[in-house]
């Protein structure tokens, strides 16, 4: 958490500036019976990096949709560069110099990077044929400008990792001159190294006088990069302050409305036992380049964290253990005995559960009832002779729902109606219904707001106390450091370091993670 980065040099730009470039006054919006925005007031100066924070459902997304012309406000005034601003379409918004890099990616996976960057105004000749050289050169320049030198503009976007795609989106947004650039949770999928790169780009924009609205769940990033921060809660502006005049605690209180972070910080007593429930010996999957593969031991009641940069093979490791992708070689020992899983089914039968990184694509059936999602992995215990027993299924859902403090309208409500945190609880419930001995968690709090995060941490600890062994992958180091008994650091598909709880520090973890990188690029 370095406050020094948002140094005085930048702030003078913001303070020295005159009229605000973007002003919102008492903007309101309802969707049917739900109030999405209940009076948002906001002012962004030229060349200012403005943090926008709030829990899920606080109104950030609606606000962004209004600014980029997807949704029209019910009332309130918006001014951009001193003139009334009422965009009817995203095209209007762009024409007025307001660009958004959305949370969901808008890239076309089978077209090249260059084509994606130029998609809105492909350079073409008299006959409408695309001038490929000009386009590629332009794209090259755009990527170089944001330091993305390791990406070939002719590659299809499909080939890029999620982090690089995000940066290509940024490059595309920067193609046209903009007054205001909105970044909607740009770092959610980035590792610290890529985040650094993004922040350099933001710094550069700031010095060119472009205003940036930066939406993030990560407060340390807000402190690092922002000049000013606005907190939203329940569709209203709670406060808006220069970054130097606020504190971490104040922001969290503003978002949550109460002091919830105590729970997150509380010290834990490790419940790790000595009994080994899962061992990997030279375990490799198809993408793993090293003969030695991965070896590790996981104990009963232990929370073992796996840290590493994006692409270090953390997700692939979990997927291979669970046989979601076929493993290549090596041995899995389950409770000391060799085990071979040919499909997720066999891994599940051996007492393993897997909370995937992508809740919406892999974890939940959003359009189906909550009860159907909870029972999905244990249908045999809510059915007889292949006939579903809805009463048993609802009872199971209600029991697990109250155990996990799930906030829901009822077992028959669609999973899509839940907030991110409650959706994640449904995924947890699905596995707990089977009484597993091992739970693999991939980014367990991605897209989950601060309050729900604390609850999920408490749940994970409680599982461990009851003897469940947990293997947790996370890109958020504070998360791993709060939760885990032990952290292993991965790089280039192998374990490059291991830290017991007493030795936890972000610095040590990152040192390991980058060391591995360097060793790799060395040969």
């Amino acid at each position, binding site marked *: 958490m370095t406050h020094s980065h948002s140094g005085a040099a930048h702030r003078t730009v913001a303070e020295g500036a005159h009229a605000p470039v973007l002003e919102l006054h008492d903007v309101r919006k309802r969707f049917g019976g739900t109030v999405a925005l209940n009076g948002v007031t906001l002012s962004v100066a030229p060349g200012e990096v403005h943090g926008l924070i709030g829990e899920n459902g606080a109104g950030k997304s609606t606000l962004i949709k209004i600014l980029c012309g997807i949704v029209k406000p019910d009332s309130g005034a918006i001014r951009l560069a001193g003139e009334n601003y009422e965009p009817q379409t995203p095209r209007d918004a762009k024409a007025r110099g307001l660009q958004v890099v959305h949370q969901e990616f808008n890239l076309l996976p089978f077209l090249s990077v260059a084509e994606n960057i130029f998609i809105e105004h492909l350079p073409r000749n008299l006959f409408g044929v695309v001038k490929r050289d000009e386009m590629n050169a332009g794209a090259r320049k755009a990527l170089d400008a944001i330091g993305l030198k390791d990406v070939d503009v002719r590659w299809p976007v499909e080939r890029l990792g999620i982090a690089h795609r995000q940066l290509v989106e940024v490059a595309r947004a920067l193609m046209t001159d903009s007054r205001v650039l909105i970044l909607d949770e740009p770092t959610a999928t980035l590792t610290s190294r890529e985040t650094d790169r993004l922040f350099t780009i933001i710094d550069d924009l700031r010095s060119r006088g472009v205003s940036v609205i930066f939406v993030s769940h990560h407060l340390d990033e807000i402190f690092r990069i922002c000049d000013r921060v606005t907190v939203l809660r329940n569709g209203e502006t709670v406060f808006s302050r220069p970054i130097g005049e606020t504190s971490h605690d104040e922001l969290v209180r503003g978002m949550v409305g109460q002091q919830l972070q105590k729970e997150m910080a509380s010290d834990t007593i490790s419940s790790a036992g000595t009994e080994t429930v899962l061992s990997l010996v030279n375990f490799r999957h198809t993408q793993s380049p090293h003969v030695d593969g991965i070896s590790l031991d996981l104990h009963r009641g232990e929370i073992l964290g796996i840290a590493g940069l994006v692409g270090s093979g953390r997700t692939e490791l979990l997927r291979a253990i669970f046989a*979601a992708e076929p493993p290549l070689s090596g041995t899995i020992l389950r409770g000391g005995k060799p085990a071979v899983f040919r499909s997720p*089914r066999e*891994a599940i039968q051996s007492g393993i559960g*897997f909370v995937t990184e992508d809740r919406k694509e892999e974890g939940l059936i959003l*359009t189906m*009832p909550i009860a159907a999602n909870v029972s*999905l992995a244990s249908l045999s215990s809510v*059915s007889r002779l292949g006939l*579903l027993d809805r009463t048993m299924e609802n009872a199971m859902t209600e029991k697990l729902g109250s155990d996990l403090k799930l906030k829901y309208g*009822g077992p028959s409500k669609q999973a899509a109606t839940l907030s991110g945190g409650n959706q994640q609880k449904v995924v947890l419930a699905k596995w707990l219904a089977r009484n597993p001995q091992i739970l693999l968690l991939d980014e367990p709090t991605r897209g989950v707001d601060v309050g729900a995060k604390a609850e999920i941490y408490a749940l994970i600890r409680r599982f461990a106390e009851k003897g469940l062994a947990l293997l947790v992958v996370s890109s958020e180091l504070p998360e791993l450091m709060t939760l885990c008994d032990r952290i292993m650091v991965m790089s280039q598909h192998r374990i490059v370091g291991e830290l017991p709880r007493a030795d936890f520090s972000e610095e040590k973890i990152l040192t390991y993670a980058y060391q591995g990188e360097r060793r790799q690029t060395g040969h």
Partner: protein
Amino acid sequence: MKGMSMKLVLRDAGIGIALLLLIVFFSLSTEHFLTPNNISNILTQITINLILAIGMTFVILIGGIDLSVGSMLAFCAVVAGTVLTIPDLSVFVAVGLATLAAIGTGVVCGFLNGWISAFWGLPSFIVTLGMLNIARGAALQVTDARTIYSFPQSFNAFGSQMVFGVPVVFLIALALVAVAWFVLSKTVFGRLLYGIGNNEEAVRLAGHSLMVYKVAAFTIAGALVGIAAMVYMARLNIASPIIGIGFELNAIAAVIIGGTSLSGGRGTVIGTLLGACIIGVLANGLILFGLSDFMRQMITGVVIILAVIIDKYRERITAA
């Protein structure tokens, strides 16, 4: 399931209301529409399409499509017809064996459809397009392109049997609807078909074999084609290798008009029943109305497109 099923009831009710309006309209505007004779006529006419559409519902629910049912119908019919006309068999034995042969042929073709597309991860559109040609060719090959006829008298009589003015073959189709409804809404198997149609990967990672359920859906569709083939033979007293051309499209239309989403995961077999009824009532009513065959075809086309447009809005309502 209360909230969910309420909404589903409302969705189906919409299709039911559309059907009712059509019936009222034709009853008022034509003389013969609401006569017992005409009603049993309509019911007979929709029977085959309904049976095929039940199977199609299973396939479309998992996000697949089966283009081969028309050709498979011909293939099943000529195989069954060959068995049925074996000399010196008692009627009971002959009909029993022929039914087994028809269903067996359908099951084999359906199994191949499902297995090939699941094992190699191919789109079922392509695989069943292949099967469309294979089954048609096989039907022509087996019969040397000849039509089989002179079935036992009692078998032919069965095809036009009535109970209280309702054709027996339609009652069979209704029974199949009831069984399919039970399987889809009350069993683990049905639940997983919906699950696969909505989010295959989530179902796989929850420990279920996608292969089993996909193959089963296509196999069920195949078995129903076999039953439809027997009904066809009993009704028209022939088995020909060139029957059933385009039947797959009518079956798909019934399923879609019935509110099942082409992308899978959403829909009911009750909707399919109503969808098949709408197509049947429309066809019959427009004839009575004095419209030409060509006009009829155009209007049916318009209805299909309308149904999908309405479904778009329904989706929005259920999502809210």
